[in-house]
C-alpha cells in the first residue's frame, strides 16, 4: 500500500535529549489521514522520542515535522496542540487530586476563552463515555487504571484533535481493559482521526493498524501494511532480540 497525501509527515528526523546523543537518526514516517499508523521497535529505539518530537517536547536537530504540509519545527508545544494534535502519553497522566470533570475540563485548555463551548465539549465527553458520568466528582487518583486511562482519553479528545499521538496505551492495564482501549482507538480512526500509535504490544497494535513501521536503533528498518506483518510476528520479535 502506498500512502497518499499523508496528514502527518516526519522527514529525515534526527533528534535526542542531548546534542551528543541522538536517539532518532534520520527517521521517515508518514501517517495517512483517517488511518492508524503503528510504530514498533525494541526498547530504546526512539519510539516515544518520535511522538515527543511531533508534539514539540523534543526538537529536531535535522529533518522536519509536517502537518498537512505545514512545517511544525518552529512551533512550541501549545501551538502544535492548537494545530489539532492530541497526545496520550505513556503511563498515568491524569491529574490525581482533581476530579474527573476537572481533568476533562483542563483538557479543553485551548477552549478556555469560550466557556460555553468548553462546557459543551466537556459534556460531550460524558455522553461519549457514560461510565465516566457517575465518576464525575471522583478524584482521578482514586480510580482504577482503566478508568484513569478513559479519563486521559476523554481529556485528550475534549479539544477535538484530528491527529492523535498515542504512546503505549495498554501499559499497566489488564488484558480486558487493554482490549477496550484498542477498540476505542479503532472507533477514533473510524471517525476520521489520524492516529500515530507507538506500542510494545506488537500483536494488538498490528491487529488494529493500517500501516506499520519498524524502527531499529533510531532508524527505519522495515515497513508495510498490516497484512505484510500479520503472519510474521515471531520473526519480527526474534529480530529485535537478535536471536
Amino acid at each position, binding site marked *: 500500500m502506498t500512502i497518499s497525501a499523508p496528514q502527518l509527515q516526519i522527514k529525515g528526523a534526527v533528534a535526542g535529549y542531548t546534542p551528543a546523543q541522538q536517539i532518532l537518526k534520520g527517521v521517515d514516517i508518514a501517517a495517512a489521514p483517517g488511518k492508524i499508523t503503528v510504530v514498533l521497535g525494541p526498547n530504546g529505539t526512539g519510539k516515544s522520542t518520535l511522538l515527543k518530537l511531533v*508534539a514539540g*517536547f523534543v526538537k529536531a536537530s535535522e529533518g522536519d515535522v509536517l502537518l498537512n504540509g505545514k512545517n511544525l519545527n518552529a512551533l*512550541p*508545544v*501549545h501551538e502544535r*496542540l*492548537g494545530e489539532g494534535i492530541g*497526545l496520550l*502519553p505513556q503511563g498515568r*497522566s*491524569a*491529574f*490525581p*487530586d*482533581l*476530579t474527573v470533570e476537572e481533568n476533562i475540563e*483542563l*483538557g479543553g*485548555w*485551548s477552549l*478556555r476563552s469560550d466557556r460555553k463551548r468548553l462546557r459543551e465539549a466537556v459534556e460531550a465527553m460524558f455522553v461519549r463515555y457514560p461510565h465516566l*458520568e*457517575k*465518576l*464525575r*466528582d*471522583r*478524584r482521578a487518583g*482514586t480510580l482504577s487504571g482503566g478508568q484513569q486511562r478513559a479519563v486521559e482519553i476523554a*481529556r485528550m479528545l475534549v*479539544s477535538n484533535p484530528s491527529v492523535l499521538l498515542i504512546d503505549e496505551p495498554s501499559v499497566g492495564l489488564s488484558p480486558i481493559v487493554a482490549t477496550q482501549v484498542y477498540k476505542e482507538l479503532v472507533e477514533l480512526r473510524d471517525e476520521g482521526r489520524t492516529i500515530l500509535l507507538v506500542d510494545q504490544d506488537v500483536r494488538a497494535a498490528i491487529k488494529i493498524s493500517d500501516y506499520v513501521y519498524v524502527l531499529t536503533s533510531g532508524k527505519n528498518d522495515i515497513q508495510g501494511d498490516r497484512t505484510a506483518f500479520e503472519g510474521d510476528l515471531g520473526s519480527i520479535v526474534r529480530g529485535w532480540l537478535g536471536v
Partner: protein
Amino acid sequence: MLSIFFVRKGGAEDRTLRLFGLVFCVLGLGALILYGAIGTKQGILSLLGTVFLYVTLTQAWNILGGYGGYLNFGTATFFGVGAYTTAVLFHHYGLSPFLTAPIAGVMAALLGVIVGVPTLRLRGAYFAIVTMIITFAVQIVVLNASITQGPMGIFLPPLKLSPLALERLFFFMFLGLAVVVTLLVYAIENSNFGWALVAVREDEDAAEVIGVKTTRIKYIANAVATFIIGIAGGIFAQRIMYLDPTTAFSFDISLNVVLMAVIGGAGTWQGPLIAAPLILVVADMLRVTFTSEVNRVIFSIVVIVIALYLPHGAMGFMTSLRQKYFKWRNPKTGDEVASA
C-alpha cells in the same frame, strides 16, 4: 459558619455555604477593623499586625508554592530585598518607606525573575534546596555591600507617633495588605491562571500536553508572589526601624511561611487565614511558657503529625468533614457526590 472553608464549587447547597462563609468573613473583618480602631492593648495590636504580615507572606507563597506545587524556601530573600530597598532609599535619599514600598515590590520581583529563570527549571527537592541557598547568597552580598552598610545595618528614624498609634498604623497597613492579597489569591484560585498552576502542580508534563504554557505560568506566578513579598518587606523595614542582614534575611521567615501554608492547607486561599493566627498565637503562648528552643521542638512535632495524618492541612481536614457530614447533590445528575 466556617462554611467558606469547605467550598470550591458545586450546586445550590454550595452557594448557600458560600454565602454563609462570605458573611462570616465580612463579620470577622468588621470585628478586626473595630478592634484596630478602639483597641488599646499594644501587645495584641502588635501580634495581630504580625499575623496580617504573615497572612500576606503565606498567601504570596501560596501562589507558586501552594497552587503551583513549587516548594519554595526563599521567601526571606525577597522579603529582605524589599526591606532593604525601602531602607536604602530612605537612608540615601530620605524617601519614606510608605512611598517606596511599591519600588521594593518591583526590586523583589526583578530579582524573582532573574533567579526564577534558572531555578524554575528544577523540580521537587532540588528547587527547594536552591531557593534556600539563594537566601544565604543574597544575605552575604548584603552583608558585604557598602550601600547597605554591611553588618552595621540601617536605622530608620521612628515616626512621630505614640507607641500605640504606631501599632495601630501598622495593624491597619498589614490588615489592608492581607485583605488585598487574599482577594487576589481568591481570584487566582478561580481563574484560568489558577487552573494552569494547579495543572503544573498535579503533573507538569501532562499540563504541557494539554497546552498549558507551564514555563510562562511559573514565571508569572513567581513574579507576582515576589512583588507582594517585596512590598511587605518594604513596609516591615519602617515597622522595626532598624534593619540588619540577619533580621531581614532570617531563614525563620521562610520556614514560618512554609509551615503556615502546610498546616493551613497549601493551595487554598483559606489555609493561610487559619494557620497564620493559629501558629503565631500558639507560638507566642509557648514562648511565654517554655524557651524558644522547646517551642521549635513542639512545632516540629506538630508538623510531623500533620504530615502523617493531615497531609492536606487544616483545609483538607475540613473538606473531609464536609464530605462526611454535608453531602450535596450533583446539580447535573442529582446523584449524591461520592467522597473522593
